[in-house]
């Protein structure tokens, strides 16, 4: 141990996961930078609490997810304000790359809206599971619940997302493996 700093202990081992989770949720360079700064500011504010937490790294990753989701939420509200202009411009742009990009963005927006429809714990749990590949034990510790409850949050989130995103599901898997 010796000279390990807080940064070495808490942040360095999960730098990649922090960056990846913010980027995967936000997917826009400027907003991602804002979200990452926001996440770091929140980590800074809660540093004492994080140090005492049973699983500080899982808590930090949860903070990253929350900051990223907050940023996407704000961005979506902003876009709703200028929707009319954007639609007019988009319709005029028929290039394949523009439509592909729009499709991807639209899908992600729908996914995000569906995630927003979940309870806070369900949303955090499914994102920690799918975006960050976190084990249930870590998810449970970040949420402050038992592992069984964490699994319950993830499974309930899956059921609700399957319903609200059924049109995005590959046709071969629709109806299969429903629990």
């Amino acid at each position, binding site marked *: 141990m010796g*000279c390990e700093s807080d940064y070495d202990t808490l942040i360095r081992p999960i730098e990649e996961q922090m960056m990846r989770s913010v980027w995967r949720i936000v997917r826009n360079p400027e907003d991602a930078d804002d979200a*990452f700064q926001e996440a770091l500011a929140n980590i800074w504010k809660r540093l004492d609490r994080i140090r005492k937490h049973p699983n500080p790294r899982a808590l930090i990753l949860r903070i990253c997810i929350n900051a990223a989701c907050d940023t996407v939420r704000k961005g979506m509200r902003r876009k709703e304000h200028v929707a009319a202009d954007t639609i007019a411009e988009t319709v005029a742009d028929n290039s394949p790359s523009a439509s592909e990009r729009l499709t991807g963005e639209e899908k*992600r927006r729908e*996914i995000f809206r569906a995630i927003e429809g979940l309870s806070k714990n369900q949303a955090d749990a*499914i994102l920690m599971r799918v975006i960050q590949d976190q084990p249930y034990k870590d998810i449970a510790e970040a949420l402050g619940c038992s592992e069984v409850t964490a699994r319950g949050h993830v499974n309930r989130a899956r059921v609700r*997302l399957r319903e609200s995103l059924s049109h*995005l*599901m590959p046709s071969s898997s629709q109806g*299969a493996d429903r629990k």
Partner: protein
Amino acid sequence: MNERNDHMDDIDRVLHEEMNSEIPPEVEGRFRSRLAEFQERMDERELARGSRWAGLLSLRGNGFRRAIGVGAVAAAVVLAILAGQLRLGPGRDVRTAPMEITDPEVKTFRLADGSVLKVHPGSRVAWSLGEESRDLYLYRGEVFLDVKAENREFRVLTPSATVSVLGTRFQVRVSPGEGEVSQP
């Protein structure tokens, strides 16, 4: 039980496909510089809390950390000596994020306690003037300080040394591998 395969179902795949994306290099670059700033802030905070003592006493770690530890202990000793005389300072002025002087000329700052700080081009500094201490962090470059005399000490922390004064005029320069203090 294989936890991943057990739960990687259809909806997970949809989320993975739509959200999985490699971080573009320019975004990763920005993230990494944010992390570097954050690390500096965390290290400064630890420094201020004196939590490096254990590392110093174990005499492990690299030279830079040991030097920081020596600086922290030296500063703490000065603080202990002054403990009986400390008074609360008048102004609080906190600039925790390191600032880089990119302008070609020397920049002058008047700090909340009345001290004057002149920062040379290319220098990187941050300061924190609290109720009990006045700290200037000089990561690199050169500063001139005209420290307002007070009972609370004014510390200049560099990667290799810590200077503590109560009120005087002096210059500090940090160049790669060294720190130099001179009094005009």
